[in-house]
């Protein structure tokens, strides 16, 4: 029998899981491995179907743990044999404790910045350019040139937005990870580690930041999450 893994923590309380159903309809339970406790459930197969029900079963269990403590969540779909889990924890014990210290008392908040497609993709200077010269070769090269220029401009804009956001968030967050995503829709994906008692302050601060943001950007703010972006030890 394999184990499906939800998260790792310390001093977790089993009673909080009593009413929760996990992946594949199984009951989650605590498995103590030395000083670290894993939240797991029995899993008969070796592959987890990516269905809405199973994804939410995973998050339901981790979110239940999050109400009382901040765990290190596993990525969806982690299935191992018990011996493998025990050796993983034993081998990485110190690093896992350091990670648990890092996220203790915090939750993850997410901010994604999207381009307003109604405005961002239009570029008057290019739109007014004359049509490409006749001939398939020339047209192809011209299209490639435009594509390349567009990507470079998107990257430049994304980096600018990321720098602006980093400067605005200040000390209201404990840690942050910011990914610049120079794509057509998504510009920046940021995750913040925020102390639970400062969540109200964080939200108020973020709303102030968004009011001052460039007009052609849209925002997707969500949370609180388990610290998915802060689970792996720092490089």
């Amino acid at each position: 029998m394999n184990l499906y893994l939800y998260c790792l923590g310390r001093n977790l309380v089993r009673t909080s899981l009593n009413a929760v159903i996990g992946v594949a309809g199984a009951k989650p339970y605590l498995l103590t491995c030395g000083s670290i406790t894993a939240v797991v459930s029995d899993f008969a197969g070796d592959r987890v179907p990516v269905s809405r029900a199973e994804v939410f079963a995973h998050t339901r269990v981790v979110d239940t743990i999050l109400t009382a403590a901040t765990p290190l969540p596993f990525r969806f779909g982690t299935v191992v044999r018990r011996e493998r889990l025990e050796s993983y924890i034993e081998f990485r014990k110190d690093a896992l404790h350091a990670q648990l210290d890092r996220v203790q008392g915090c939750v993850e908040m997410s901010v994604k910045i999207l381009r307003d497609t109604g405005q961002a993709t239009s570029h008057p200077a290019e739109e007014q350019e004359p049509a490409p010269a006749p001939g398939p070769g020339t047209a192809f090269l011209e299209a490639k040139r435009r594509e390349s220029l567009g990507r470079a401009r998107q990257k430049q804009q994304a980096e600018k937005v990321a720098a602006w956001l980093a400067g605005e968030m200040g000390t209201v967050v404990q840690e942050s990870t910011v990914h610049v995503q120079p794509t057509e829709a998504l510009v920046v994906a940021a995750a913040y580690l925020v102390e639970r008692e400062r969540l109200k302050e964080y939200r108020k601060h973020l709303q102030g930041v968004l009011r001052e943001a460039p007009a052609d950007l849209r925002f997707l703010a969500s949370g609180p999450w388990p610290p998915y972006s802060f689970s792996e030890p720092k490089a």
Partner: protein
Amino acid sequence: MPDPDLELLEQSDLSLLETLDHVLNKGLVIAGEITISVADIDLIFVGLNVLLGSVETINEVLGQRTSGGAAESDAPESGTGRA
């Protein structure tokens, strides 16, 4: 309660997308032990792009959200808005 300045759009769809972005892209990994199957996928309106780790489709989903099913209600709150 969302900020009135943040126009809340289809919270359930956004919650599902955000949930997928978190649980499929991030979190502790034991090397070689992620064995998900996309064969039984029922995340019809989300699309494979999200499953493969991109939220590139967020705007598309926002545009098509009336055709999608509602996500479960127990996901964290999500809000989107224009500054």
